């Protein structure tokens, strides 16, 4: 395992009841890089990203075998704390889902849950998180207004700020731009480029151009298998597997 590897999966299998959704997936995810997961609907990419912070624990009849190691420790081991894992490995979803609260409270919510109550400290966290999510300038005069009044793109960046507020190391993004217009998408993509300086970002996307634009590594999945995983430039210039080639050139999927 190289120094910059932060997450690895080893022979990861996942079943929803009798359906096998992941088939022996083994990858290494690099810290401070963007990794994109692509593949047709139902290929297991969202399932895989949800394994990284144990979101699948909430799904009935979901079974996992193999391991996911975060800093070398299996997050599915007995005694691993899912709450702590979800703090360190945050998640942003497809549809912006701010709480029906003020902009400020959305960001302060996580730190409060984790026990921070000092107002000054919270103010600092909120400002820093909003700045890092490239949203501060747009909302600094309306922190007490409802988050529901923000535009879709702003709401999504607010969700990113909310994730950053609890100081994670890894940010999982499950199709973060699919509900956004091209301008808002472009802002999120620029933000991802900034975030990778300090965080590991894993993004699931249906948009292959987006994967090629934002990521350093790309994994192509099909029917629950990781068909090919490598540097993004190589995958999009000269993939090793014919299946990858056929998918990214639009011959199926």
């Amino acid at each position, binding site marked *: 395992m190289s120094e910059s590897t932060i997450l690895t999966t080893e022979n990861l299998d996942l079943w929803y009841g009798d359906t096998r959704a992941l088939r022996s997936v083994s990858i290494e995810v690099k810290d401070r890089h963007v990794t994109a997961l692509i593949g047709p609907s139902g290929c297991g990419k969202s399932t895989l990203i949800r394994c990284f912070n144990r979101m699948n624990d909430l799904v009935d009849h979901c079974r996992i075998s193999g391991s996911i190691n975060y800093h070398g420790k299996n997050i599915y081991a007995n005694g691993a704390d899912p709450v702590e894992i979800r703090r360190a490995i945050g998640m942003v979803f497809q549809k912006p889902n701010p709480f029906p609260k003020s902009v400020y409270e959305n960001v302060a919510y996580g730190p409060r849950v984790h026990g921070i109550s000092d107002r000054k400290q919270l103010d600092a966290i909120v400002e820093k998180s909003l700045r890092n999510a490239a949203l501060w300038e747009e909302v600094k005069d309306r922190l007490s207004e409802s988050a529901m009044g923000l535009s879709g793109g702003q709401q999504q960046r607010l969700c990113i700020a909310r994730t950053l507020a609890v100081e994670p190391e890894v940010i999982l993004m499950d199709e973060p731009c699919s509900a956004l217009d091209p301008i808002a998408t472009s802002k999120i993509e620029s933000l991802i480029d900034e975030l990778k300086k300090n965080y590991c970002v894993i993004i699931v996307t249906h948009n*292959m*151009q987006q994967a*090629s634009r934002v990521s350093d590594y790309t994994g192509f999945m099909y029917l629950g298998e990781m068909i090919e995983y490598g540097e993004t430039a190589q995958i*999009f*210039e*000269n*993939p090793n597997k014919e299946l*990858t*080639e056929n998918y*990214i*050139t*639009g*011959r199926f999927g």
Partner: protein
Amino acid sequence: MSEKFHAELAGKKKQILVMSAHSRSMLRDSMVALERNDLRLAESVKKRKEELTHLNETLEEEIYRLIALYQPVARDMRMIVCSLKVIAANERIGRYGKDIANVVIKTINNETKYTDLVTALSLPHMGDLVLSMIDDALRGYELEDLTYISHHSERDDRVDALRHTIFREGITYMMEDPRLITRCTNYLMVARYLERCADHSCKIAEKVYYLVTGERIEIK
């Protein structure tokens, strides 16, 4: 959407091969005109330059349009890269055909002691070698098959060696009869043009290799 793109790309490839046939005919006919001392054929080659320019501009533009509209990746992207190189090489090869036609027009003369010089210098033989290299590079592009270009490097060496021989022979003829200097210098230029055409066929071959394997090589 991708079916539409692949159909368009296949259509462009066909048009590029039509352009290739056009530029190849310019080179071939200029060599025939040189060998037969045929003024009319040389002038017809010159006239074909206009169509060559038109094909070059429109095909290049259409390839740019495909890039802008579809952002091709992987093999599709490599096909685009290779196609642009083929268009550029076609244009150069056709223009060398025109240059050779100009030599024919400049040196037109019915006295056999002059026209025999073309054969004496092995220019028709060199022309055949170069045309077959161009044909094989284009066949490689058409069929996306490396077997046609597998000996391009050695073939290019032979063409280079031949040009060198022609140069030395030309000097001997010029020393023998200084009245031949202008004509002979022109013929040495023809050898130079042919050698450049062989180089362009190598450039096509390099990109065919890239298209098929994704790897870049240099054919010298």
